[in-house]
């Protein structure tokens, strides 16, 4: 079981993050490596919308977090999902600070030996992040900032 959690203060490219993660697979070729049994990978990428929750054009989305606790809490959530589904590996990268429409907010990638656990693990880890990792979003439309309370529906 391999786990990586990273927060980004600046824009990040999820495909670059996935490529870095994939290099671990290519470098660790022992048959016992968690990578060797992970024939199935599920990813999720969430980006900043172009409209606010109220339907106005969004200038930016601000993401506040709790430095230290946020990272530790994501690791606890990911370890629980990894154990529950017998996953081989998981990667969580999350943006913090001020992000622009279209920029990546969150990347979740998990690997497992079969597609079912990979897909379910990826979904559960994303829901856990949304509900149980300390992040707070503020939408900026022009000069007005409005804190969101809760998440968009599934």
């Amino acid at each position: 079981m391999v786990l990586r959690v990273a927060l980004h203060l600046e824009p990040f490219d999820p495909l670059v993050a996935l490529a870095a993660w994939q290099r671990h697979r290519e470098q660790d070729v022992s048959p016992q490596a968690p990578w060797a049994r992970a024939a199935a990978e599920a990813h999720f990428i969430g980006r900043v919308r172009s409209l606010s929750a109220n339907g106005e054009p969004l200038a930016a989305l601000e993401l506040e977090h709790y430095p230290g606790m946020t990272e530790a809490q994501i690791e606890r959530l990911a370890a629980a999902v990894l154990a529950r589904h017998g996953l081989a590996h998981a990667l969580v990268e999350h943006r913090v600070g001020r992000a622009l429409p279209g920029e990546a907010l969150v990347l979740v990638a998990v690997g497992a030996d079969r597609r079912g656990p990979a897909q379910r693990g990826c979904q559960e880890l994303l829901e856990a992040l949304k509900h149980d990792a300390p992040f707070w979003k503020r939408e900026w439309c022009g000069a007005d900032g409005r804190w969101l309370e809760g998440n968009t529906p599934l």
Partner: protein
Amino acid sequence: MPTRLVTVRLFAALRERAGWGERRVALPADQPRMSATDLWWQLELGDRAAGADGAQPGSLPSSLRVAINQAFASPDQPLQAGDELAFLPPISGG
């Protein structure tokens, strides 16, 4: 008995409504089992910060969560000297 200090942290809307984000607070010597809920009311966060979600003394607004030393904790857990206590408004991550 030495002064028992805890660090209290507020985030996001809660921080902005209260006007501060971090404060060192001395636990009263005569309340050895003081909890996050007790401190919420002692710091008058309920009056000034809870908004429409305000609860009565004795409980926290239901939308809030408490972290002690950077892990979720019960709001009724007795605080220890040196604890970092955080009041967390509703989460919107991912």
